[in-house]
């Protein structure tokens, strides 16, 4: 096979994070090349670089020998690179034909040639085997699967040589996936190279030709045959580098602090029940979109639920009252720290004391001196850097911003911490520090629930792990014996599930 796309030694450094650290990728014309790796392994950054949406720090990208390293979307597009992102970038108010030709409309002079666009759109849809899709239909009213077809027709409306598909099957039902694969085969038969990203490892053998595995921003295996088994793939995806990051801690288990019973918010969250004890770290694993953040938000009263109950220290919380959840001792550190957790132009002190102004004030007035004392004590205990309580939160690194949110709940003396991806966007070195802090808090008797996409983090750090898939808890694993493979199997539904664990609801009798 002749190389269509040649990526060599690609490096992409964002402030504070090295997203890509030497990636190689070869895609031949007419092949489906599967790209796999954990969340955060660098897949998205890689395709952004290839599509020209991000400029690489070092390395080369060549398509047919032509250099694409400049990082301009226009260059990539005109060279024949088309990308279908996870979040489909269609305009819902426009018709199918309008969407397909968006940005390169067919025209007669300054006027749109609607008839020609409609006709050509029809031809493209026929080529994709979806002649029944009406070019005049409004895209916003189409099913997700049809929207995907429109995206692909748009890619084809330009002279596409390389098609990048980011988790195209994530939103599709099995029959729709079959139809999608049929379309992909038509494209490759016409000589188009396809980069296919999917978390559903079982799809790879059906559609792929070769596989490249990324881990921690590096290519750890390239050009494996698509027949490679799921187990070796998972081994390659996981790696072993994280272990030394986790602190040794004395596990103490106290009373049940947080009890969740039948909490449900269809279709995002199926009835979920579990308990967390004082001193326990409960990990929640699963793929992005499996309902993990939704679970945390439902517990904290941030989203409406249809049934179920949350109680802290034996006392039930009213629904949809985040203020009362906070008062009862639940503290949330959201995944989107900057947009949901912090006031970036506020000082560290103000960010940390916002939940405790009644206690730290005098009557209706605030007491900056008392705030400063209370905040500084916790900021020092967590070793927030820089040690300048008046510094604005926006000037801190990701790890220190995470500590800031945690410090708020320490000032508040919360008994339950709900952490959503606490190490996302935190550099590997700084992660050890975040783990140390969380471990210490558990040691002090806080009950901790931690959503994580890092398998090593779940296995190496958590006392107990719930795995979610499609809005439901599908497995519960004990921290000491859990393996990363087990978590992935539950999360991916690859069939070969171990029989020792309950498949359906996590039971609350444990431990």
């Amino acid at each position, binding site marked *: 096979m002749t190389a269509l796309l040649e990526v060599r030694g690609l490096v992409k450094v964002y402030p504070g994070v090295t997203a890509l650290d030497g990636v190689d990728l070869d895609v031949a014309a007419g092949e489906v090349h599967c790209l796999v790796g954990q969340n955060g392994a660098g897949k998205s950054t890689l395709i952004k670089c290839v599509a020209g949406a991000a400029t690489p720090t070092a390395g080369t990208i060549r398509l047919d020998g032509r250099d694409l390293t400049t990082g301009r979307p226009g260059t990539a597009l005109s060279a024949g690179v088309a990308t279908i992102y996870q979040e489909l970038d269609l305009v819902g108010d426009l018709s199918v034909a309008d969407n397909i030709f968006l940005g390169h409309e067919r025209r007669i002079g300054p006027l749109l040639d609607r008839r020609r666009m409609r006709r050509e759109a029809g031809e493209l849809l026929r080529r994709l085997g979806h002649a029944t899709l009406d070019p005049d239909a409004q895209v916003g009213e189409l099913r997700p699967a049809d929207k995907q077809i429109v995206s692909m027709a748009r890619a084809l409306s330009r002279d596409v040589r390389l098609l990048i598909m980011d988790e195209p099957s994530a939103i599709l039902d099995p029959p729709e996936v079959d139809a999608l694969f049929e379309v992909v085969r038509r494209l490759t038969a016409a000589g188009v190279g396809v980069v296919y990203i999917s978390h559903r490892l079982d799809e790879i053998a059906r559609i792929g030709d070769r596989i490249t595995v990324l881990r921690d921003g590096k290519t750890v295996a390239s050009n494996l045959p698509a027949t490679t088994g799921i187990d070796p793939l998972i081994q390659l995806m996981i790696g072993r580098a994280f272990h030394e990051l986790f602190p040794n801690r004395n596990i103490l288990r106290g009373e049940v602090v947080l009890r969740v019973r039948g909490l449900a918010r269809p279709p995002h969250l199926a009835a979920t029940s579990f308990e967390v004890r004082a001193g326990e770290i409960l990990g929640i694993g699963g793929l992005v979109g499996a309902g993990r953040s939704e679970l945390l938000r439902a517990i904290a009263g941030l989203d409406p639920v249809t049934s179920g109950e949350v109680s802290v220290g034996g006392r039930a919380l009213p629904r949809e009252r985040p*203020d009362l959840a906070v008062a009862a001792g639940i503290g949330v550190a959201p995944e989107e720290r900057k947009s949901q*957790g912090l*006031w970036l*132009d506020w000082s560290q002190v103000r960010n940390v004391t916002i939940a405790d102004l009644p206690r730290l004030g005098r009557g209706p007035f605030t007491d900056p001196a008392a705030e400063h004392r209370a905040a500084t004590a916790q900021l020092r205990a967590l070793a927030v850097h820089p040690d300048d309580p008046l510094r604005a939160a926006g000037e801190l690194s990701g790890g220190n911003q995470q500590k800031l949110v945690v410090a708020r709940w320490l000032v508040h003396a919360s008994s339950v911490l709900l952490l959503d991806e606490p190490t996302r966007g935190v550099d590997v070195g700084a992660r050890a520090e975040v783990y140390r802090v969380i471990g210490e808090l558990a040691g002090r008797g806080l009950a901790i629930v931690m959503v994580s996409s890092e398998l090593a983090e779940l296995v190496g750090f958590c006392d107990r792990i719930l795995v979610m898939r499609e809005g439901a808890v599908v497995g519960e694993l004990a921290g000491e014996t859990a393996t990363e493979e087990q978590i992935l199997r539950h999360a991916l539904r690859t069939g070969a599930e171990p029989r020792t664990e309950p498949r359906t609801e996590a039971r609350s009798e444990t431990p």
Partner: protein
Amino acid sequence: MTARRSARAQEIALPLVVVALIIAGTILKGSVFFSTANLWNVLVQASVAGTIAVGMTFVIATGGIDLAVGSVMAAAAIVGGHYFASAGSAAFMLATVVAAVVLGAINGIAVAWLRIVPFVATLAMFAAARGIAHLISHQTPVALYGLDALTRIGSQRVLGIPIPAIVFLVVVALGWLVLDRTRYGRYVIAVGGNREAARIAGIRVRPIVFSVYAVVGLCTGIASVLQTGQLASASPVVGLGLELDAIAAVVIGGTSLAGGRCTMIGTFFGVITFALVFNLLTLENVESQIQQILRGVIILGAVVVQRRGH
């Protein structure tokens, strides 16, 4: 930090602008401008829009806006003048303030609980409150000559200071105290700066959003009393364009229309800057139409300068 710095910058820069305007006025007009009489007059002229600007600072701090203040001021005065003037000055003042708070609270309910965009909710009140004023008054002003205490507010001085100026200064001071020094003020800024973070931190966002519209209603009611005191009548056509003056003073003062960044001191100097500029232009016999155009130019310029600072 940069954002805070720019609000601070305005707190420092505007007093300099005020000093420059006073020097310029003194050079241009001499004692006609630089006299205690004229300078107090500037404050009296600023008192109505300025009092409302204090409440508007709270609304804009949450990322909201209130376009209805001018209409609400007229409607409140007409309600007070038509139904309660016969019961004396105190009854009139109380009724006027209560009516303005009620209309403001309706805005607050529309924005906080019915989740109507502030621009639209208060635009509706802008139309409706003016309608109320015309309907009750049959489109004629209500004379309030009998209310001595009220007219004294508009005309008399305490320790040589005109009463409207005193009221304005007291409202500014209270506004500063509440916004800068109380828990409530911190919550207002928190909600404006990051609503979701505020919710997650356990702040009840909707009552806070509701309250700022009631606060601007309260300020509008006080402004309405000042205005009727000066005119000795309640008119259904007062307050036209007043929302513009109040919002402009707040924005010039350095408060961000996006919410979360506000300065009451800036608002005070924004009000004074505006009042001085138009006092000077009037003394220079510049036509009111041209003053109106300049008003627009100044607002635009202030927003551009504010954005530069970020």
